[in-house]
């Protein structure tokens, strides 16, 4: 199963999905050297935005990867109201869409603690370094706390050298 984060991000952007990049890819963008096998985003859990996500991946055979039968992503108004997260497997890899982030809060709070990041293929919002440290500390799994060690070191370095991205 490939994992093409750039292609997934471009699709989300093309559909005007409101989202913030969180998790391991966010850590990579800040400078962490750990490899991550999924793309985590926090997004606004409105019907409109969820339908945009569905449109972004509809031809990628999206399936709810944590359901026993790997149910296909087929949103209904009822589901849009009841879902709080969407964990997907797609032909371009794993895309986990969260409605909130531990240690930060819901999408609005995540958005407030995000920063814009320009790439050659567009501008994306990512969780700020400080917020990512707070989020990973709150989750508290061993792998998250390992990442916190690196993120804290990077934060320290960036405070010393203001020219670092």
């Amino acid at each position, binding site marked *: *199963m*490939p*994992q*093409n*984060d*750039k292609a997934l991000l471009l699709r989300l952007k093309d559909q005007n999905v409101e989202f913030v990049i969180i998790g391991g*890819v966010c850590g*990579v*963008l*800040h*400078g*962490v*050297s750990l*490899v*991550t*096998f999924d793309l985590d985003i926090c997004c606004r859990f409105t019907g409109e935005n969820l339908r945009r996500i569905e449109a972004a991946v509809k031809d990628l055979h999206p399936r709810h990867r944590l359901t026993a039968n790997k149910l296909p992503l087929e949103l209904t108004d009822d589901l849009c109201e009841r879902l709080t997260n969407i964990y997907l497997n797609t032909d371009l890899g794993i895309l986990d869409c969260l409605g909130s982030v531990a240690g930060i809060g819901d999408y609005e709070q995540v958005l407030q603690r995000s920063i814009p*990041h320009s*790439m*050659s293929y567009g501008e994306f919002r990512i969780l700020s370094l400080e917020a990512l440290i707070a989020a990973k500390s709150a989750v508290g799994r061993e792998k998250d706390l*390992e990442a916190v*060690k*690196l993120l*804290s*070191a*990077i*934060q*320290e*370095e*960036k405070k*010393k050298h203001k020219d*670092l*991205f």
Partner: protein
Amino acid sequence: MIDEETLAQMNGKYVCPPDAGPAWRAAMEYGFDMSLIEDALRMTPEQRLEQHQRALDMILELKEAGENHAAK
């Protein structure tokens, strides 16, 4: 004649920057290769993502090759 310190560095010894702070030293002492972080910080975020994609592709290719080998 290569001195002992240079030889140690050639053999993989990481030299912590003299101005490294406590978090940097803690991460180093935990066992992280901080030279990789130094390299990453010299890149743009987009370059970091591209490098990550290459590493990810390589890992997934190796995993697939391992699975194919096991299936034979």
